[in-house]
């Protein structure tokens, strides 16, 4: 029994210390986000992605209408085809 009491005491201290620590730690993370990250976000904003300009749009829609596909897509698909063949064309 004495031993049990002892263990409960330890568990209680652990609970207290643990919860305090968890709150303090994650609380400091809040501070970190609200100060450091916030400042960084202002100082280094994401490059503004210009809303697709007419020219851009045109190129894109052109691409689609005329069946022209960007080389990257072609490469990706042909790569996928290659992978597919590599995987399925060779046995065991």
């Amino acid at each position: 029994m004495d031993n049990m009491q002892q263990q409960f005491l330890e568990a209680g201290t652990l609970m207290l210390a643990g919860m305090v620590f968890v709150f303090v730690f994650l609380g400091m993370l809040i501070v970190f986000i609200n100060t450091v990250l916030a400042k960084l976000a202002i100082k280094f904003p994401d490059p503004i992605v210009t809303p697709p300009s007419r020219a851009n749009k045109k190129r894109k829609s052109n691409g689609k209408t005329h069946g022209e596909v960007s080389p990257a897509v072609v490469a990706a698909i042909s790569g996928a085809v290659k992978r597919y063949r590599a995987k399925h064309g060779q046995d065991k």
Partner: protein
Amino acid sequence: MDSLTKLWLSTGLANFEPGQVVMMLVGCGLLYLAIARNFEPLLLLPMGFGAILTNIPVAGFSEVGGLLHYIYYAGIDTGIFPLIIFMGVGAMTDFGALIANPKTLLLGAAAQFGIFATLFGAIALNYVPGIEFTLKDASAIAIIGGADGPTAIFLASKLAPDLLGAIAVAAYSYMALVPIIQPPIMRALTTEDERKIEMAQLRPVTKIEKIIFPLGVLMMTIFFLPAATPLVGMFCLGNLMREVGVVDRLSSTAQNELINITTIFLGLGVGSKLSAEAFLNVETIGILVLGAVAFSIGTASGVIMAKIMNKFSKVPINPLIGAAGVSAVPMAARVANKIGLEANPHNFLLMHAMGPNVAGVLGSAVAAGVLLALVG
């Protein structure tokens, strides 16, 4: 005939011990949960399979020279597999929602009460005859409340390897049961009006914030809780690789092939700890009970914390998202979203719940570090 006798004596039938049969049924049960009930199948399927293999008589899977022996000692006893998984999870985690609404970190903190309260419960269970949990055992069990598989496995492998099998089973099962365990608690602790609360749209988060965030988390862990740095460090490495944009091929491998390979072997290795001696005893029942308690308390404390914050916050906070603080990413966030939708069909809480959800991952890694530092 001699040969046939020798063959017979080498069969499983001639060598089965009852415990092994039962443990194989447990393994089949895990397979059933994985396959038919879709309970965290990625881990429970190899784990259930490992449980079957390790209990095969004569085969010696987990003895010196056996496959599962190598897997366990190379990957789990060393802690390498859970850490690799954690790196992959980091590479899959988007902290955007958390950075946009940092207050939700408090929800992730509150939900860890499930862990620490369970410590008490585990000690209390020592009154039950047949159960004798040391403080180390209790800590390893309590971490189930963290609702985070690799963290639980890592801590259990350090503090109570004998209980590893049961703890992993409980952790993954309850994670899969989140949609069943959480809703009644969430409904009981909230009013219809609270559940209807809509939350303001989250601000966009810049790339630099997402890059610096894991480094900040790591630095704080280094300063205040080095014991947690294996877990937090690998998690942050994965997350950093994800966000920087210059090592996409590493990030992709960490999220896919590497985590898949490791998951197969982690599952098998954890399953190898599901031997009759280690699993078929009253303690396992205790662990299963405590796991459910831990999840419930964690859910409740998350919701209550959210209610309190909603009281004092200028912007409204739907208390349902507090339940996501237990982690179980992204299931718990989905549950919050679903219950929110039930109360108010225009109430999309998913993104808001992702904040406490990923905060819960950090929270339980921190809790694991505290336990390692004080008990380990």
